[in-house]
């Protein structure tokens, strides 16, 4: 028996979240005396996969076949199912993001396995399987049990940490048997996004709200983000008004992110906005209004005019980063 971790493959690269999932799986595995196996679909170099061995994974199954570089949810589900059978996996872990959520629910139906997304902690019991998850857009924490033979989980980013645990990682090829290649989904176009830090994976996020007043003024946030190696984000009205692209909108109806540092600049801190960032390790509020609700959820606050503070902050950070080097 084992714990199977679905490893997200972004153009041949690992994401930090896969290392976190491996560490989370290892903590479960130690309690149950199981081992941790990863599954990666599509091309990824062994050197990249080896990194997983530093975080408790002892085996990787790789489905290194170009025909699977293109994600088809229905086909990926069947590949994971076959890996579950091969490794006799009792627990299957996916990243808590769009890709994990595209496949895990389908697998849950095929295996009749309880599916528990947005997991916040290690399981508190294995008999019955019990774990805490986020509910009501972060306004509550639910305790959930699954009585099924297998259980599928998506632990949230930053819910566990990244303890190192070196293992001898064995990499094996795995050939799934997909009977009918899925002709039902056809790729007709693709545009690669510009290079830059992806919001969903960013350690630091610089986010602006209506207080920034215009699309041009976001240039200073972009500069700050470049200094910090951060991604940029925004509140909903900013995206609705077209000042920023829709995929930068964070919150209950936008992206849910969990960076190490979230800068909320000229953002009032409405409950729907905070729902998207409550998993951040540290929230910094910068607002001209000392009564702004953002200060109820922030860890650090600066009161003042963003147009004055942001360029100053950028300078201080630039010096700090320079000295650190």
């Amino acid at each position: 028996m084992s714990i199977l971790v679905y490893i997200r493959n972004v153009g041949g690269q690992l994401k930090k979240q896969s290392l976190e999932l491996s560490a989370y799986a290892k903590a479960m595995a130690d309690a149950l005396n199981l081992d941790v196996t990863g599954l990666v679909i599509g091309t990824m170099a062994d050197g990249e996969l080896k990194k997983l061995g530093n975080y408790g994974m002892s085996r990787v199954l790789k489905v290194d076949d170009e025909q699977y570089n293109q994600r088809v949810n229905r086909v990926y589900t069947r590949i994971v199912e076959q890996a579950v059978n091969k490794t006799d996996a009792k627990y299957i872990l996916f990243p808590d993001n769009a890709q994990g959520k595209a496949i895990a629910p389908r697998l849950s139906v095929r295996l009749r396995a309880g599916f528990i997304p947005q997991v916040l902690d290690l399981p508190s019991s294995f008999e019955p399987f019990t774990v805490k998850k986020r509910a009501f857009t972060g306004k509550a924490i639910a305790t959930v049990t699954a009585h099924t033979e297998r259980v599928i989980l998506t632990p949230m980013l930053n819910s566990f940490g990244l303890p190192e645990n070196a293992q001898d990682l064995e990499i094996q090829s795995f050939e799934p048997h997909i009977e009918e290649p899925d002709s039902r989904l056809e790729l007709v176009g693709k545009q690669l996004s510009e290079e830059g830090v992806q919001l969903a994976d960013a350690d630091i996020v610089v986010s602006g709200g209506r207080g920034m007043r215009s699309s041009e003024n976001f240039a200073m946030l972009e500069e700050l983000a470049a200094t910090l190696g951060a991604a940029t984000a925004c509140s909903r009205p900013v995206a609705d008004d077209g000042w920023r692209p829709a995929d930068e909108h964070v919150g209950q109806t936008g992206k849910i992110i969990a960076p190490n540092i979230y800068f909320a600049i000229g953002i009032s801190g409405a409950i729907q906005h905070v729902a998207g960032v409550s998993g951040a390790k540290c929230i910094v509020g910068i607002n001209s209004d000392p009564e702004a609700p953002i200060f109820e959820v922030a860890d650090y606050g600066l009161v003042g005019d963003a147009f004055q503070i942001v360029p100053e902050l950028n300078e201080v950070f630039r010096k700090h980063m320079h000295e650190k080097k």
Partner: protein
Amino acid sequence: MRVFVCMSYVPDTTTKIRFKEANTQLDDASIQWVINPWDELALTRAVELKYDAASPVDEVEIVMVGGVRCEPILRKGLAIGADKATRIDVEPLDAFQTATQLATYLQGKDCGFIVCGIESGDYNEAAVGGMLAELLDYASVSSVSSVQFDGDAPVYQRDVANGKEQVKVDGPAVLIVQKGFARVPKIPNMRGIMTARSKPLDVIPAIEVEPLVEFVEYAAPPAKGRVKMLNTPEELVRSLSDEAKLL
């Protein structure tokens, strides 16, 4: 072309969430129920497509799993512009039970596509769409940000990690949609509200389904420590680096 929109109802986002029965159940006494925000965007876009002469969509039906208390929400959906609503008469217990009810109703029904919002703002499962697709053995396209048409064939745009892709599906698909599919929800006008009263709202019985997971208890999230107010950018950088150790 008929399009189905699967809708759920959730507490209004500003509602305070409280629990009862020793924190095992949601205290719904003071809750105002609304259409799940993502589903509202999905419905908005479906209705826009119906009124767009260049699109083959000519019928929009809402399907909802829920008790009688969600009927005002279905009426609102009809006022936004759906032609018909169907309520499957059972309280949702988990994503699997909900998806199975939907699949039982939708099985074999002719349609172009079925739209589900990415997640519902209550149990935050993000699971019903994917489960429904597997139960129907349809393709699922997730992170869908728009639908265009190539003749009568839908072309779905989805966000992937490093960009955007356009895909075609041969046969019906379940779309899991997010922000961008529509930007702002459509607000029903007076005429919509009037005509909604006479549109069909069917209630059909549910089937027996065992849920796969059980919500046993709820708690409030841990209270945050108080914010530390700082005076200068230098202080902030020092705090982030020396105190929080995040730089």
